[in-house]
C-alpha cells in the first residue's frame, strides 16, 4: 500500500498507555503492524514508539508510551510517560487494561479519568480472564466510566478493528468521550470541590480544565507539582494556605494521611466498579503461576533451575550458531557464523579485479571495510539467537524471577536483581550479547544509583565483540584447554564487573539505596511473533552500530595504517616497515615504551587505539595490520591471524 507515512499536522495526538505487562505493546503492534519491542519483563517498552494506520482514507498516527502504574511517577520511564500524557496536544488516550489484573489497572484508569481528557479503554486479555472464570461485562464498565470499552486480545488481533474505528471517529470529531467525575465519598468530594473551584479562578485560561486534577494531586502532596502550579498563579501564598487547611480538614476527618485517603478512595472506586461488572463462574481454573513459582523459586530447585536455564541458553546459542556445522555450503557444511564469514570473504573477492590497477581502493574495500565490518557482522547469527532466547525468556515472565532469586546476591555487590537482565544482555552468559541493548535495558531500573552502577560495569562483560578477540588470542597462544580458558575469561569478566560494582557502590556513587519494587508477572507462553520482533529490534541495534560507528572507525584505522605508504606499483605488503612508518605505526610505536611492560608491541597498540572507539574493531584492525604486513593470504583469515600473532610472540 502506498500512502503517505505522515498524518496531517493538525491531528490531535493519540497515545497508548497502560500498566507494565498489560499487553500494551502488542495492541500497538496490531494497530500499526509496525516493528517494535514486546515483552513480559516490567517496563521493557522503553522508547516512545510511533506508528501509523490507515482507516477510511485517513492516515492516523498513534504513539506507544512506556508502561506506568500511576501518574505519580517513580521511575524515569514513568516520568517521561506522565510528561507526555500531560501535554496539551494530547487528544485521545487509549488506556490498555489487563483483564487479569483489573483492580490495579483500573487504578491508573481512574487517574486518567481525573485528568478529564477523552479516553477509551482496550480491555486486553479478556480471553484468558474468561478461561479463568472471570467474566467482565464491558458494556456495564463503559456505562460506569462513560467511555467506550473494547474487548481485545492483543496477540491475536481481536478487537483491533473496533479500536481503530473509535480512534478514527475521534479524529474525525464524530465523537468525544468525556469521562465521568470520580467520586471519593462525600467528605473528600466536598474538599476537592472547594479547592478546585479556588484553583480554577486563579489558573490561566488554558489551564482551567486541569483544576480538578491539580487539586487531587495537591491533596496527594505532590510537592513537585505544587511548585509548578505556584509559578502559574499570582497568589501562591493563598493557595498554600488553602491547601494546608484542606489537607488538615481531610486528615482530621478521616484520621489518616491525605495521600492514603486518596489512594484508598481510588481503589474503593475500582473495586466498586469491579463488583458491578465482573462475575465469576464456578469452573474457575486455579492460577498456575503460583504453583509454577513453588518450584521455580524453591530454595533448592530454584537456583538449580536457574543454572540449568542459563547454561542451556549458553549451550544452545553457542552450539547452533558456531559449533554445529548444519548449513550446507557445497562442498562442505558450515555453521551460521562461518556462513556469514564465507559470505564476506567471497564478497571481498568480488573486488579483486581492482587489486592490480587501484591497490589503494582495493585495500580500502577488502581490508578496511569488508574485512573489518564483516568480522563484526559475522556475529549476527549468534547475537540474533541469543536475543531470540532472551526475549522468549522475558515473555514467559521468567526474567522477573531471575531478578527475584538473585536480588540478595547482587545486593552484596551494590547491584540489584534487575541489573541481572542488563548484564546478561551485555554478554553475561558468555555467548555473545552486546553492551548497547544492555545499557538500554537498564532503563527498567527505577533506582538511579543502581542504574548508574549497572551501566558503568556493563563494559566489563564478555560481549559478542570480545569473543573473537578471546578466540583469536586463545587460538594463538594455547594449544590445549581452549574451552576452559574461554570459560575462565568469561568468569573473570563477571568477577571484575562485580568487584567494580562493589567499589563503585561503596566509595564512588553516593546516595541512599532506593527501595525496590518488582512485579512478578503471571507466566505466559511466549508468542513467536512478538519474540521475533523483539529479538530483531535488538539485533538491528547491533547491525546499525556495525554499519555506522564501526564502519567509520575501520575506515579511519585503515587510512592511518595505509596512507603514508608510497604507491610503488608492487605490493607494499612485502615491506613490513611500511606499516611501521604509517601514522598508526608511529602512534603505536610512541606508546610502546609504556605498553611493552604488559607485552603489547606497536601492532597490538594500533588495534587498542581502534578498540577505544569500538571493541569490535580490534580483530578487524589486527587483521588489517597483519594482512597488510604479511604476504601470505590464507583462505582462513582468523587462523592465519592467530598463527601470525603466535609467531610474532616467539
Amino acid at each position, binding site marked *: 500500500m502506498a500512502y503517505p507515512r505522515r498524518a496531517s499536522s493538525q491531528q490531535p495526538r493519540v497515545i497508548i498507555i497502560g500498566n507494565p505487562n498489560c499487553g500494551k505493546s502488542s495492541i500497538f503492534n496490531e494497530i500499526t503492524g509496525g516493528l517494535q519491542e514486546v515483552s513480559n519483563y516490567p517496563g521493557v517498552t522503553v522508547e516512545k514508539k510511533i506508528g501509523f494506520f490507515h482507516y477510511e482514507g485517513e492516515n492516523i498516527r498513534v504513539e506507544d508510551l512506556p508502561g506506568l502504574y500511576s501518574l505519580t511517577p517513580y521511575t524515569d520511564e514513568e516520568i517521561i510517560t506522565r510528561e507526555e500524557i500531560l501535554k496539551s496536544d494530547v487528544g485521545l488516550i487509549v488506556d490498555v487494561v489487563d483483564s487479569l489484573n483489573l483492580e490495579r489497572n483500573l487504578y491508573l484508569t481512574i487517574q486518567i479519568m481525573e485528568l478529564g481528557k477523552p479516553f477509551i479503554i482496550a480491555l486486553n486479555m479478556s480471553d484468558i480472564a474468561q478461561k479463568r472464570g472471570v467474566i467482565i461485562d464491558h458494556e456495564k464498565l463503559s456505562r460506569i466510566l462513560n467511555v467506550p470499552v473494547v474487548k481485545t486480545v492483543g496477540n491475536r488481533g481481536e478487537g483491533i478493528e473496533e479500536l481503530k474505528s473509535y480512534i478514527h471517529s475521534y479524529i474525525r470529531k464524530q465523537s468525544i468521550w468525556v469521562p465521568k467525575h470520580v467520586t471519593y465519598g462525600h467528605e473528600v468530594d466536598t474538599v476537592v470541590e472547594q479547592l478546585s473551584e479556588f484553583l480554577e479562578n486563579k489558573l490561566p485560561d488554558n489551564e482551567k480544565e486541569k483544576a480538578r486534577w491539580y487539586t487531587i494531586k495537591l491533596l496527594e502532596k505532590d510537592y513537585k507539582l505544587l511548585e509548578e502550579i505556584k509559578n502559574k498563579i499570582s497568589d501562591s501564598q493563598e493557595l498554600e494556605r488553602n491547601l494546608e487547611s484542606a489537607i488538615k480538614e481531610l486528615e482530621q476527618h478521616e484520621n489518616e494521611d491525605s495521600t492514603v485517603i486518596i489512594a484508598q478512595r481510588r481503589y474503593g472506586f475500582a473495586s466498586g466498579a469491579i463488583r458491578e461488572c465482573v462475575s465469576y463462574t464456578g469452573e474457575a481454573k486455579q492460577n498456575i503461576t503460583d504453583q509454577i*513459582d513453588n518450584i521455580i523459586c524453591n530454595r533448592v530447585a530454584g537456583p538449580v533451575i536457574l543454572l540449568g536455564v542459563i547454561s542451556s541458553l549458553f549451550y544452545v546459542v553457542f552450539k547452533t550458531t558456531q559449533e554445529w556445522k548444519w548449513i550446507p555450503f557445497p562442498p562442505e557444511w558450515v555453521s551460521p557464523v562461518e556462513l556469514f564469514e564465507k559470505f564476506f570473504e567471497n564478497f571481498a573477492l568480488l573486488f579483486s579485479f581492482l587489486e592490480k590497477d587501484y591497490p589503494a581502493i582495493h585495500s580500502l574495500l577488502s581490508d578496511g571495510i569488508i574485512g573489518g565490518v564483516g568480522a563484526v557482522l559475522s556475529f549476527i547469527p549468534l547475537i540474533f539467537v541469543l536475543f531470540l532466547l532472551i526475549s522468549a525468556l522475558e515473555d514467559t515472565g521468567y526474567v522477573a524471577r531471575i531478578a527475584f*532469586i538473585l536480588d*540478595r546476591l547482587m545486593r552484596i555487590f551494590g547491584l540489584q536483581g534487575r541489573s541481572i537482565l542488563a548484564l546478561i544482555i551485555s554478554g553475561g552468559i558468555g555467548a555473545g550479547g552486546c553492551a548497547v541493548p544492555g545499557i538500554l535495558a537498564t532503563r527498567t531500573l527505577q533506582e538511579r544509583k543502581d542504574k548508574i552502577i549497572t551501566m558503568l560495569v556493563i563494559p566489563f562483560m564478555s560481549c559478542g565483540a570480545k569473543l573473537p578477540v578471546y578466540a583469536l588470542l586463545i587460538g594463538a597462544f594455547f594449544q590445549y584447554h581452549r574451552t576452559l580458558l574461554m570459560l575462565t575469561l568469561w568468569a573473570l569478566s563477571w568477577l571484575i564487573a562485580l568487584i567494580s560494582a562493589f567499589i563503585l557502590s561503596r566509595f564512588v556513587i553516593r546516595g541512599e539505596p532506593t527501595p525496590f519494587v518488582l512485579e512478578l508477572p503471571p507466566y505466559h507462553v511466549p508468542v513467536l511473533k512478538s519474540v521475533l520482533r523483539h529479538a530483531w529490534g535488538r539485533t538491528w541495534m547491533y547491525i546499525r552500530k556495525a554499519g555506522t560507528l564501526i564502519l567509520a572507525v575501520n575506515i579511519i584505522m585503515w587510512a592511518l595504517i595505509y596512507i603514508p605508504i608510497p604507491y610503488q606499483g608492487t605490493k607494499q605488503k612485502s615491506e613490513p616497515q611500511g606499516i611501521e612508518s604509517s601514522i598508526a605505526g608511529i602512534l603505536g610505536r610512541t606508546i610502546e615504551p609504556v605498553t611493552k611492560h604488559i607485552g603489547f608491541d606497536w601492532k597490538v597498540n594500533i588495534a587498542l587505539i581502534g578498540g577505544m572507539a569500538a571493541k569490535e574493531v580490534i580483530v578487524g584492525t589486527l587483521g588489517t595490520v597483519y594482512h597488510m604486513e604479511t604476504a601470505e593470504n590464507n583462505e582462513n583469515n582468523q587462523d592465519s591471524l592467530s598463527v601470525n600473532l603466535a609467531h610474532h610472540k616467539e
Partner: protein
Amino acid sequence: MKNFCNTERLSELEEGTKARIVGIRGGPPTYRQRLLDLGLTPGTIVKVNREAPLGDPIELELKGYFLALRRKDAWHILVEPLPNNPE
C-alpha cells in the same frame, strides 16, 4: 493516627501468612506513595507467598497479582495478621 495492639511488621510474617494492612510508617515519601499506588492501602489483605531462595526479597500476593519487596523495605508496612484458615 490509629492505634492497633496486635500489629506486626510485614517483613516479619511467616511464609503463607495472610494479613490486613494497617498502614505504612516511615520510609521515603516517594516509596510510600508507590506502595499505595500498587494497592498496599490500609485494609487490603496481603499474603506472604514465599521468600526468595536466599531469604530475601519476599513475594506478596495482593489484589490478584504478585509483588516482590525487600524485607528491609517491607519493614515499614504495618499489618494485622489474620488467622490462617485452610482453603
